[in-house]
């Protein structure tokens, strides 16, 4: 255990800090004035797309988790917008790098990194959620093309995306996990309809996408026909890592502490209520534990040590803690905690209520808590899978 910084890292930190100080005007108020310009500047400096090879439009540095962390910390400290994220950059690009053809890499990675193409993901279907391999959207061969029909759900940026990466069933006679291909589809292809999916928050954070005989060339397959399940699983690993960020949770904890110190009922600060204070302390303890668990994971990645359970629990615990924080905020606010949308008595723009509901969605999405527990028990503890039923 040594949490002090080496001279090399301190120098790197100074470099990042200098970069941001010099460009303070480009992001007054926390948002980039010129989003695409800012993204290009970050790539050029190595603060975005850092480890993507130069040939594909990245910065081309060796992976260095400490430097990544320093970049993150300094950007937060300066209130500077990070490089662009989204499913194209976080999921498609790693997938193409791993299994894409040279032509696919050249064509898609650069523009995606530069923010010129927005992507959405077409995995889940109404009948294929936890049981993703059960997907039914079919791609039928038609000459050199596929004709795709079916529907997808939970595609978060479909309304704004130019492109989709998508799982479709290309080999209907193959076994469940083996008939799937991973294809790339322009969203303006005829036959695609996007419908916003309203959720309990009142917003439409997701969409449904319907395909009717959507024509896509067979060259749009990534990683080989019938290999889609394995290609997608590579990508899903990246997604699961995105949920349960301990720094974001700690920031919410601090916001809640602030709320409880300033907000009053009958003139007494909420923090003076021993029940709520104790719950706050319980959450603080668990959040600190997950924060240090995160540091442990970073070190383990650096040293390439196996960590097993410490990594498998991040999504389960992270989403749950966020949900619990919102629950405490609502409870401590009392009747004020049930206000939403607008009005003079609304607190924090209704964010706690929104989080309470949206975070419940995250507990369910990306692998429900039940699926997470299956994974922890099987991969983490070596417990047997459930036996297959005798009769389907």
């Amino acid at each position, binding site marked *: 255990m040594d949490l002090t910084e080496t001279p090399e890292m301190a120098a790197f930190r100074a470099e990042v800090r200098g970069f941001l100080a010099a460009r303070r005007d480009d992001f007054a108020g926390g948002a980039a004035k010129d989003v695409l310009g800012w993204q290009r500047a970050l790539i050029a400096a190595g603060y975005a797309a850092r480890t993507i090879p130069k040939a594909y439009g990245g910065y081309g540095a060796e992976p260095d988790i400490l430097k990544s962390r320093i970049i993150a910390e300094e950007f937060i400290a300066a209130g500077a917008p990070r490089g662009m994220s989204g499913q194209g950059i976080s999921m498609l690009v790693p997938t193409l790098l791993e299994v894409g053809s040279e032509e696919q890499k050249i064509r898609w990675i650069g523009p995606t990194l530069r923010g010129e193409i927005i992507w959405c993901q077409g995995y889940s279907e109404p009948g294929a959620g936890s049981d993703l391999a059960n997907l039914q959207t079919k791609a039928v061969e038609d000459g050199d093309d596929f004709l795709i029909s079916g529907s997808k759900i939970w595609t978060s940026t479909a309304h704004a995306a130019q492109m989709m990466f998508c799982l479709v069933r290309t080999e209907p006679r193959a076994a469940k996990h083996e008939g799937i291909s991973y294809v790339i589809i322009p969203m303006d292809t005829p036959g695609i309809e996007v419908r916003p*999916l309203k*959720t309990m928050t009142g917003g439409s954070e997701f969409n449904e996408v319907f395909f009717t005989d959507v024509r896509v060339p067979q060259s749009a397959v990534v990683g080989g026909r019938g290999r889609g399940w394995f290609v997608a699983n590579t990508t899903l690993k990246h997604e699961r890592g995105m949920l349960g960020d301990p720094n974001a949770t700690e920031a919410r904890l601090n916001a809640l502490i602030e709320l409880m110190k300033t907000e009053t009922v*009958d003139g007494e600060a909420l923090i003076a209520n021993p029940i709520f204070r104790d719950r706050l302390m319980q959450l603080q303890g668990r959040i600190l534990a997950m924060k240090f668990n995160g540091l442990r994971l970073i070190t383990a990645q650096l040293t390439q040590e196996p960590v097993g359970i410490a990594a498998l629990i991040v999504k389960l615990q992270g989403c749950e803690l966020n949900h619990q924080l919102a629950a405490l905020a609502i409870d401590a606010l*009392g009747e004020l905690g049930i206000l939403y949308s607008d009005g003079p*008595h609304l607190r924090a723009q209704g964010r706690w209520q929104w989080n309470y509901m949206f975070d*419940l969605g995250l507990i369910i999405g990306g692998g*429900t808590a039940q699926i997470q527990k299956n994974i922890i028990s099987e991969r983490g503890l070596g417990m047997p899978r459930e036996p297959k*039923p005798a009769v389907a």
Partner: protein
Amino acid sequence: MDFALTQDQRMMQESLVRTLADASPLDRVRRFADDRGDTGADVWRALAEFGLAGVVIPEEHGGLGLTLLDAALASEALGAAVAPVPFMGAVLAPIALMRGGSAAQQAQWLPKLARGEITAAVAISESVAGARDGAGVTATNGKLNGKALFVPGGVAAGLLIVADTAGELHLTPGEALDSSGRTLMPGIDETRRLAELTFDDTPAEPLCGGPELLAALRDAAWVLIAADSLGAGQAMLEKAVAYAKERRQFDRVIGSFQAVKHMCAEMAAELEPCRSLVWYAAYAFDNAPPGVSGEASLMAAHAKALTSEVGRFVARTATEVHGGMGITDLLGLHFWFKRLGLNRQLLGGPERVREIAARLQGLSV
């Protein structure tokens, strides 16, 4: 010893469920939720015809002359149907008039309320749940001043019963407070509307009873909210069980997975005892000798607090059983989720209510 509903009570509840299925199906609730201009008058009219507007009003004033237990059974059905109606005031205002009003006041208001001509709202949040944002109402020389927040049905009520900061209750005719004194407080639960009332030398008549009447209104409100949560929770459990029996994943209905079965079993195990507690709390209120309300208050507090906790657990768990579908607007499950969310906080969250329960027993100062 007969700890059960009567045949009449069961028939009334079943009949109300059918009435609600006609008058307030989910798409009617959706329209109400989507449009703040929709007053839900048609739904209320149907329920008034059923008799709900006067459920606890004596027959001589045109009501059904029933008990709080009957009202609680109605409240349970309303919660199960997430019905967009101002039922709480329809029970509390008559209780206030019968216990604290003059014969003239009773004769003036009760028949109108019983016919459903006007609705009523009761403003006691500051006295029960604590004052926020400087709210609180004072009464001097028959005039009210100040603000009352979180008043269910307060936007459209034709009769207002208002607690002042000294714990005394006042009656204000609806026309005494125009729309500038009534502001909608948009909340998470779009099936019921809360109002902020602003009094500015607003004329009012005093009611008798003071803190004791206030406690009775609080207790009755807690019982009604608890019953509403019981109904909403039961509906969510039933929806979860039905969905789990139908939805297939991994070549099985998900209801055959032990994790899903146990989630449903836990909901049932938590929810079912609430039913008996709500019944008993209402029964204790109905049978409390006047002035000796200690037991009734304690039972109301526990019914409110327990259904709040169980309601949150059921709301979350039933949503989880539905998987992604649970968080969409497609099934509308969130209407029940949010109804339970509002019930939890309204007139005191469970922590505050339990503290009052402790105080009622002399376990806290």
